[in-house]
């Protein structure tokens, strides 16, 4: 017979599992080079000290269970639903950045000496309506399940006291009028002709701009500012203590 071929497509051999080790682990020159690469490419979002600004604090990654391999993979692939892009840089550059991050990584940090139990009650009363932790909470603001790992104390204080100082992409406020209905929400996506909004009452709404009466992005976050008169210093400490416990690194698998 002509054209007989061995069919392999259905039953190829799966890739062999391999835990990759950083070839630059402990290599001082590579660590220095990695720090320079980080300063040029990553510090804008993660801060020059990698303690987070727009992007997460990276100094507690290893304490949270990350490995060189998983950190490499995150840099290579980026983080979906965030502004963290994938990287096409050569492997050795990524490994150098990973080596530098490892060199500055620290043990888990105590965010506050306040009372986490009281903080939890405050969270349930003041925050949970918009923020999810695990299976509980709202959807309008960022998921805080891992916030204790990804934000430093300073970043959390700023986010509470001055939430409008830095609003993450995907959570910027918009107000618009659609067929006479005034709608407020956060911008999930936008192009020249359309806007995709999560409304404050939990609807995903895709709208053509030409059909809208008004589209008004706002610099202010939808999150109220918890100034000292609304949230006293001891309450702030309690809330920070609770947020510091939110360190779920797993998938939440049971």
């Amino acid at each position, binding site marked *: 017979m002509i054209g*007989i*071929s061995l069919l392999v497509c259905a039953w190829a051999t799966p890739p062999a599992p391999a835990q990759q080790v950083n070839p630059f682990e402990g290599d001082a020159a590579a660590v220095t080079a990695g720090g320079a690469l980080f300063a040029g490419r990553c510090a804008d979002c993660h801060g020059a000290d990698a303690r987070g600004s727009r992007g997460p604090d990276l100094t507690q990654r290893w304490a949270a269970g990350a490995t060189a391999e998983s950190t490499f993979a995150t840099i290579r692939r980026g983080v*979906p639903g965030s502004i963290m892009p994938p990287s096409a840089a050569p492997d050795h550059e990524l490994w150098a950045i990973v080596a530098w991050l490892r060199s500055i990584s620290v043990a888990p940090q105590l965010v506050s000496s306040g009372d986490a139990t009281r903080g939890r009650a405050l969270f349930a009363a003041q925050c949970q309506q918009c923020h999810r932790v695990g*299976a509980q909470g709202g*959807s309008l603001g960022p998921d805080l399940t891992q916030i204790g790992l990804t934000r430093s104390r300073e970043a959390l204080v700023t986010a509470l006291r001055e939430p409008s100082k830095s609003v993450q*992409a995907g959570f910027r406020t918009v*107000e618009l009028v659609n067929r006479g209905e005034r709608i407020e929400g956060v911008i999930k996506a*936008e192009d020249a002709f359309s806007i*995709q909004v999560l409304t404050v009452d939990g609807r995903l709404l*895709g709208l053509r701009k030409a059909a809208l009466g008004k589209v008004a992005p706002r610099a202010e976050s939808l999150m109220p500012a918890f100034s000292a008169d609304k949230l006293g210093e001891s309450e702030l400490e309690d809330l920070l203590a609770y947020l510091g416990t939110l360190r779920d690194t797993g998938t939440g698998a049971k």
Partner: protein
Amino acid sequence: MQTALRAVTVSIAFSGLLPAIVSAQSPSAPIAPAAPSGVTAADIRAGLAEPTRWLTFSGDYTGQRHSPLTQITPRNVGSLSPQWTFQTGSYARGRGFETTPLAVDGVLYVTGSNNYAWAVDARTGRPFWEYRRTLPTNLTYGALAPVNRGFAILGDLLYMTTLDAHLLALDRRTGGVVWDVRLADYRQGYAATLAPLVVDDQVIVGIGGGEYATRGFLDSYDAATGARRWRLYTVPGPGEPGSNTWPNVEAAARGGGGTWMTGSYDPQLKLLYWGTGNPNPDIYSGNRQGDNLYTASLLAVDAKTGTMRWHFQFSPHDTHDWDANHVPVLAEVPFGGKPRHVVMVANRNGFFYVLDRVTGELLLGKPFTATTWARELDANGRPIVLNADGSSGCLPDQWGGTNFNPPAFNPKLQLFFVNARETCARYLAQEPQYVPGEITPGGVTWIDRDKQFGALRAIDARTGEMKWEFRYPQANLAGVMSTAAGLVFSGDQEGNFIAFDAANGRELWHYQTGTSIWGAAPMTYMLDGRQQVLIASGAALISFALPQR
């Protein structure tokens, strides 16, 4: 995806310059509690009665994939035009983009290859959010077929299976994970790719992995919490009914019988209809003498308790990887002068079956392909095998006379539409070595690629006779959709998305999508008064509609 996100940032940065945009001045409104999505168990039971929605994998519980929409007709379908393309950026090498999106209130909920998922604006194809699962690097079956076939929805939760054999509940507003349960240990060969099925307050989900030493099961989970309600193993344990169809406990314990394709449901009988996969190993069978129940079968399962009401085995002691993981199609079909509640399956073994869905009684079983394996069934529905191993003429290949790609059924015409595969293969069995987590096909298949073609076939459900066919140059794995306007939509291996006249199989319209339509079936719904038709192809989702007047 990154490009899209960057575009958002830029657009916001310059928005102050656009004259259409007025700067904010109104005070912040109090934040109202989140509104429920409005998708209830009753809505899902009502199927496609609400024209703006598509709430479950097949559109409704019958598995007919038959839409009542009639705006697009055989007369006007020629002017069907693409409205937008959503490029997912996630591609399954050697496989397809196999998803069926769900449509709810102007939002499409879409799962993709490699366990990506999105909420997409149905008007523009722009994403609200993207979800991407961090997968282990040592996936087993999930690495061979990194696909997913769709979400299920209830309330504000979306349900999705994963390549590392978990079931997730995502928040439909954000894509955030609300709960995550493990179905099985992926390292042994398990993976989950099907769209779950929501029935009342439970999520029904199956598992794949029959190419490995695994044991199939069907599970029910509490939709709110993810707690498991029941598990039905598809291969019996020691002493259980059917265990005598295996030579020993070891063979049964690794006996396969995956449940990796979404089943159907009869809310009156409260019975699930679910197909089971091949026995393991796929080809070699010297270590699994017997019929190997309940592999390569259709199971009728009590949805409340998970107990099996009846079974029908299509391919006893299968040695060709002929899984019965098809969407069972429920309908009323007249037999002997009276309407019968039936379940229909066009099986990988090349036969078309009609069973009474109350009792499992065989009403009709006829080949819909040129298979040489068997040409007849005995009185009990057992094939009279003529050519078990391909030694007397070629056999259908291990992708079968058709595969998991969904068929469709037009109840008015009583026509069952299926993409048939006419192929020519020989099977060479080899005894496998069992190493945990390693594939055990138990042989290889030789395929004569010069002797194969595909065809969309319309089978009369009352007689099993072929009413018409449309031939493609290659065998394909595209799904099918039917509409009440008398249209059939499907696709081909070369990338064409095609509309056919349901009455005669005439091609009325086609659009070249650029790569194979592989495993995906179309869906349709109304949006702002216009009927939309969607198909997934390659890494893209494309929406079509008639030109706006």
